[in-house]
């Protein structure tokens, strides 16, 4: 039986041991990760959440994520947050990926964006970027919409009726997007002399669903009017279509309208008006004789009268040519847009063209108007969570992949000592208490 002195000494030792173990536990909980510590390695995307949970519970020196499919936004954000606490988070692709997806391009860079377009029928534009030549399947909440391929440059633009969450898939990659904005499109004003061109421009736009105001000059002080008699400004109109010289009395307000952000389309017959020339991206030059019979061909606009355009402004873009001649040019003027047409009688396309000519004429004019209209964006409420650029977001969160081969080491059980230490605390305290009780102390 040891002496009471020795027993007290023993009890003191137990207390010290318990305190030391407790201190170690506390230190382990709060210490920064040590650089020399072996990293935690995951073997698949599915095991990332558990690894992140561990790294959240206890700081790790490093976390090596092996990815066999792109992680979702939640895991990416989590990993980024873990990295922000000091843990080195690296990622690499799994070595056993299928051959068709085992490349950086195969499943990495699919990105989509859904944007509203000024299309009265309610279509939206989906822009997809990804590996060149990939098969692209697009669907929305009402099912599959289209199957197509990305171009040789890896792009595809699709204008269609798309509802809700839109999903684009390529082999090995998926991206989702949703509309975040809508547009405010005010009426288009058509200014023309009474004639076939003005009539059929208005008809095409109205049939396509545009709200159109019109002024057809018939005689001095006599016109046929559609819409209210309001000033030409961006509060009332989104674009003006100046078909011919009837626009001259309103030229000054049109120039002001464009500089304020409005859109302007100038027909071939008005492409050389001095009052507009200051804002035009191109001017009418030599007359272009139509190619006989071309109006019913695959290139119907070659069969139209008009003028060849010469670019007259820096930054002017050529949007359409026939037989090498510039027929449509556009440029930004201030915050507005101006588009000049080198065609005089596009109505002939509608009347004389092939079987589908009325629809094509309508679509062409609708596209012309859509490309210049001032259409401010309005944010939509309740946009669903989308993952438009999963790979880019992953790279943005964690950097480029670290694809250096890494020996698959068993994950270090950095928390294995914690139960031992905890048991040590309990054991030391219990032993100390028992010893005290046996010797009669409290």
């Amino acid at each position, binding site marked *: 039986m040891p002496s009471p002195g020795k027993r007290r000494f023993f009890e003191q030792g137990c207390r010290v041991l318990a305190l030391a173990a407790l201190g170690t536990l506390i230190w382990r909980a709060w210490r920064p990760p040590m650089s020399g510590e072996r990293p935690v390695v995951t073997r698949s995307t599915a095991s990332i959440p558990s690894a992140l949970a561990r790294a959240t519970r206890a700081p790790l020196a490093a976390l090596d994520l092996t990815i066999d499919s792109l992680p979702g936004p939640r895991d990416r954000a989590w990993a980024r947050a873990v990295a922000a606490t000091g843990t080195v988070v690296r990622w690499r692709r799994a070595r056993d990926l299928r051959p068709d997806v085992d490349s950086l391009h195969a499943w990495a860079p699919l990105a989509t964006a859904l944007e509203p377009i000024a299309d009265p029928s309610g279509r939206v*534009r989906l822009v997809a970027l990804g590996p060149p030549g990939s098969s692209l399947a697009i669907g929305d909440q009402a*099912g599959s919409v289209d199957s*197509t391929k990305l171009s040789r440059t890896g792009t595809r633009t*699709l204008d269609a009726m798309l*509802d809700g969450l839109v999903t684009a898939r390529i082999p090995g990659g998926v991206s989702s997007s949703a509309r975040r904005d809508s547009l405010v499109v005010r009426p288009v004003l058509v200014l023309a002399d009474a004639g076939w061109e003005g009539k059929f421009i208005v008809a095409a736009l*109205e049939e396509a669903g545009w709200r159109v105001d*019109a002024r057809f000059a018939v005689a001095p002080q*006599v016109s046929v009017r559609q819409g209210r008699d309001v000033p030409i400004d961006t509060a009332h109109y989104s674009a003006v279509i100046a078909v011919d010289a009837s626009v001259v009395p309103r030229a000054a307000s049109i120039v002001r309208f464009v500089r304020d952000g409005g859109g302007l389309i100038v027909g071939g017959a008005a492409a050389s008006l001095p009052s507009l020339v200051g804002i035009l991206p191109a001017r009418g030059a030599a007359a272009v004789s139509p190619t006989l019979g071309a109006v019913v061909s695959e290139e119907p606009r070659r069969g139209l009268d008009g003028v060849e355009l010469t670019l007259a402004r820096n930054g002017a873009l050529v949007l359409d040519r026939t037989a090498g001649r510039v027929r449509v040019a556009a440029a930004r003027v201030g915050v507005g847009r101006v588009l000049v047409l080198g065609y005089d009688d596009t109505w002939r396309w509608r009347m004389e063209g092939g079987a589908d000519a009325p629809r094509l004429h309508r679509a062409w004019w609708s596209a012309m108007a859509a490309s210049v209209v001032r*259409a401010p964006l309005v944010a939509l409420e309740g946009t669903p969570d989308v993952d438009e650029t999963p790979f880019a977001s992953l790279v943005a969160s964690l950097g480029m992949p670290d694809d250096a081969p890494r020996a698959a080491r068993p994950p270090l059980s950095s928390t294995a000592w914690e139960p031992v230490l905890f048991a040590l605390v309990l054991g030391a305290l219990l032993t100390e208490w028992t010893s005290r009780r046996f010797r009669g102390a409290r």
Partner: protein
Amino acid sequence: MNTPAAERTPVSAVTREAEPTTLVAGWRRRLQLAALLRALLAGLGAGALALATSRPLLVGTSVAEQGGRVAAGSALSGGGIAMLVAGFVALAVAGSQWWRSAVRSLSTERAALWLEEQAPRLRFALVSALGDDVSPAVRPALARAIHAVPWEQAARRAFWRSLRAPALVAFGGVAAAVLVPVGLGAARSSVARDRPGAGAPGAPTPLGSVTLTLQPPTYTGLSTAREVDPALVRAYPGSRALMTGRGPVVSTHAVLDSAPLAVREAPGGWQAGFTTGASRALVRLQRDGGDARLLALEPLVDSAPSVALRAPARDTILRVPRGTMPLAADIQDDLGIASASFEYIVSSGEGERFTFKSGTLGALPAETGRRGTLHAVLSLEGLQLAPGDVVHLRAVGRDRNNVSGPGIGSSESRTIRIARADEYDSVAVDQAPPPEVDESVLSQRMLINMTEALVKRARSIAKSDVTVESRRIGRDQARLRKQVSDIIFARLGDGAEGEGHDHDESESPASGSLTPEALLKAAEKATEINGHPTDFAGDETPVVAINRPMLEAFNAMWEAGRALDGGEPKRALPPMYAALAAIQRARTAERLYLRGAPPRVVVDLARIRMQGKDKGTPDLRRPRAPLDPFHREALRRFAAALTTLEQTPTAGVDSLIVLRLAVADRRPAAATALEGAITELRASRDATALLLLVRRALDDDIVSVDTLSRWGSVR
């Protein structure tokens, strides 16, 4: 130590088996049979109870709405699962009963004990008799004791008593399965059979199977058709449709669009009839508190007869109205031709004074079916035609449609004109089919033959002779060329002159006759107004447009003539061939003006611009409606129908039926795909591919380009 029975005396063995042992063995088999029957009855009862309880839960409303016919997906599997569950329970209960029964290992001794239990007065005589160690001396006494007691009657009673409880269980289970409201078709049928026409007390009865009998209108000659549970019915307007089904009349309702239909009692259930119309419609069948069903009606179109006039084959100008003219026309119709005839209108007069008379000729035989040929003869004397009169002739066919018709089809018309005497003196009137061209053809062919012969002979005769002969042919060629130029200018008919006939035949081209360029210039000058050519088809002046083949012939003849005049017949042949070909084309050219060109007035715009005394007033224009606002709405309805389809399959199919009617006109491809999808869904088959087709057909305006625009559309 016991010895085997077989080794004992055979007599004693036979005696023992013939008596108690045989009896007990027989009862042992009966007891085993009773145990088997009890197990089977218990299994049947348990299985039926399981069916009665699980079926309403698993099948649910799907079966109720479809009347036992499965709509989409889960309904059939629900019924099947219920049956599987019932079968499993039945097997399990029967098996466990059998397993638990002691009979499974029933020995003869235990059978004897059971018999002793039923008849205590045996006092174990039966059991004792079975023992191997019973003394032979005791056996007779035991046999007597056994026979003295009527134990078999008690055993039989006990036997039947043991089956009573399982039989009751089985009966109860089967009764429950039969009588539970949402049950098998047999149960509903029995209810309907038991109370035809009576209102169902308690739970609603599903509509069940609906049969549609369709009787097309008599004129179609089509027979009555019958279809069970159709989703879409195509019928000619005026068809008589009769729907029949089982179940109570009072709780069954039928509505055609918004008009209620009378539902009447019929043997075994109900019936409702209506006549199909000329527009699309929906029939809604409804059972009170129960299910509803849609039936889409689409009218078939009875096409008008197609009529082709075979004779006369072309318009004709007659010098005198004499003789007869055979008429013939082919007529065909999709259902049947009722009548056909030739119609003529004779117009007489000129200027502002015209008189008309009309009539019909010919008739088809009464029993003409779907195609026939109409013949008649037009007597020109009978029409009392005068010079300048025009007979307009066509064939007209009528079909047998006496509901919405008759459909009338007509052929193209032909005109027969009687020439006026004075028009032969004028070149400004009708150009008859060109006999002058025919003459040229003959001449040109003859000239070619002569030239070809000369070329062959050229090697064997002197060059000077060749030249002389060639020039002689050249003069004939020049003569023909002048005829052609006369034709060209005669067609122009406005004071223009061709090459002068008064010129000497031998006159050289340079001495007065026109060159091709001069001819063309002169011809165009004749059509010019203030220096601007009159507009005409193909941006050509009339003289060019009308006479293009003849001008080509003229040019070619000119080339040929020059070569012939130069003594080079071989070089003359290619243009001569070209001239012949051009003349041939002229012969087959379309008909020219019916009359001469009208006078042309050119307005001096500069002089009169804005010189009017009156002033106009501004006016307002009303906007056009968008061409296809339906587009987006159809897509929205389709998406909604898909959502409904996932939640309530039958309602989703109904939505698709309604959508199909709505899109039939504007999106026929979508309607076709929808029809297929509805059929597949009703048959519980996969319709995914067809629904995809519907989506694409509804949104047929997708614009897909593989570039990014340099000129974006959104700011």
